[in-house]
Each structure stands twice: as C-alpha cells, then as structure tokens.
C-alpha cells in the first residue's frame, strides 16, 4: 500500500456548529418568506412554491460538482490528499442535492405534466449525472489505496463535472418536455427574490455539509496515519 505523500492536517471545528445552526435557520426563514410573499402563479397555482426548493437545489448541485472539478484537478496537479477529501465531500453533498432535485422534479411533474417521470433530455441527463456521482462514491468505498483512490475518483469526478454543461444546455439542445430556463423578464420580481433568497440559504447549508464531511474524512485519515505510525513503532 503506497500510503500517501504526507499526513493529513486535522481541521479545527471552532465556530462551525454555530454556522450550521445559522444556515438551517436561514433556510427556514427564506422558505417561510417565499411562501408568504409569493402569490399563486397564473398557470401553476400553488405549484410555483415547489420551485423555491427545486431550482435552488439544482443550482447548489451544479456548484458542488464545480467544486469537485476544481479540487479533483488540484489533487491531480499537487497530490495533496486534502484536495481529494474535499472533492469527495463535495461529490457526496452534490449527490444529495442531485437526488433532491430529481425527487422534487418528479413531485412537480406529476401535477404539472401528468407523469412522475418522462425520458426528457433534462431529466435523463440529470439522472445520468446522479448515477455518475453515485458511482464515484461507490468507487471510493472499494479502493483502499489513498493515492489510487484519489486519482481514480478525480478522473470520474472530472468526467462527471463535464456532464454539468450538458445538463444545463439540455433544454436548449433538445426541445423536449422540460421548460426552457426562465429569465428576469418572464418572471415577476417577487418569485426571483424568493428563489435567490432560498438559493443563498441553501449555499450556506451546502458549505456546512461539505465542511463537516471533509472534517470527518480528514480526522479519519489522520487517525489511520497515527495508527499506522504506531504499528510501525514511529511517532504519530
């Protein structure tokens, strides 16, 4: 086992619990605000309220996979295990928001389209993205060697992140059932305010999740290093 280039630094956790509480409180507040402030849409009725969670969840998912791309490239470039752990944390959180996006889309699709699921370009490409990152996480669980795990998962992470522009553009490249992206011009301001407020709060929750998952992974790796060092009779 080629156990790594250097030891993993244990991150300090000071202040993150408070950050988490503030993030969750912000998400509750923005959801209540959006619920109260937005009137039913002319076409969708109360269904528009689902968009305050569906759209921000999708944007946060894209953001997570952008983080995976950046830190996977950085890991391949510099070989620092912290970058691999951070990419993995972002991939897991991204997969959670990806799953949430799909579920919320289905819940919205049933009353709006009459079906829970259709093999539409946007839905299918989002499902493919989800499966790629589930595969990424499965891969990490099966490869023990940290360097190889980091390199293989960086390759899958980069390929997965490259799928993001396809998901984004799918509604313009293939005209199927999912609507085109809305613009500031075709949506009332109050809906945009609710959507961006929820996006902001969801980004805070995302940051908290990534940080906590990274922290747990870094502490785990540091404990493994210490155990190996102790077994070899060296210092921790």
């Amino acid at each position, binding site marked *: 086992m080629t156990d790594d280039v250097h030891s993993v630094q244990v991150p300090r956790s000071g202040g993150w619990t408070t950050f988490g509480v503030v993030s969750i409180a912000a998400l509750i507040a923005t959801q209540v605000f959006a619920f109260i402030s937005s009137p039913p849409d002319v076409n969708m*009725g109360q269904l528009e309220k689902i968009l305050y969670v*569906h759209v921000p969840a999708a944007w946060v998912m894209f953001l997570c996979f952008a983080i995976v791309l950046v830190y996977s490239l950085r890991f391949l470039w510099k070989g620092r295990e912290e970058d691999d752990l951070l990419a993995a944390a972002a991939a897991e959180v991204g997969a959670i928001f990806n799953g*949430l996006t799909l579920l919320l889309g289905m*819940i*919205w699709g049933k009353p709006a389209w009459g079906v829970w699921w259709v093999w539409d370009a946007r839905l299918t490409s989002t499902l493919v993205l989800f499966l790629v990152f589930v595969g990424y996480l499965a891969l990490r669980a099966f490869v023990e060697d940290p360097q190889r795990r980091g390199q293989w998962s960086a390759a899958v992470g980069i390929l997965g992140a490259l799928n993001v522009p396809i998901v984004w553009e799918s509604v313009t490249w293939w005209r199927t059932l999912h609507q085109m992206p809305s613009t500031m011009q075709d949506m009332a301001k109050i809906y945009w305010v609710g959507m961006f407020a929820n996006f902001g709060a969801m980004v805070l929750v995302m940051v908290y999740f990534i940080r906590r998952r990274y922290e*747990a992974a870094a502490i785990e790796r540091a404990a493994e290093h*210490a155990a190996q060092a102790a077994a070899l009779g060296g210092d921790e």
Partner: protein
Amino acid sequence: MEASNWGFVTAAYVVTWVLIVGYLAYSQRALNRARAEYTRVTGRKPGQGEGA
C-alpha cells in the same frame, strides 16, 4: 388542479427537510465516530496540538 396542488407542495417540502435533516444527522454521526477513533488512537482530541 388548484385544490389538489397543496398535497404535492407539502410532499416537496417534507422530502426536502427529511433529506436535509437526515443528512445532517448522518454527517454528525460520522464526525463523532471519526473524533472518537482519533482520540482512541492518539489519546488527544482532534484539533489539539499537531495533526497526526
């Protein structure tokens, strides 16, 4: 369609919060487990002194 929409809206928010709270609990458990393991191996709490 209007009257029945509230069920879908409620379902969407319930799914959102079940996922968020569930993942929050999962993350916290994983973090507590990692901290306990680190303390067991090193005799220190994580973040105290140098990294391993």
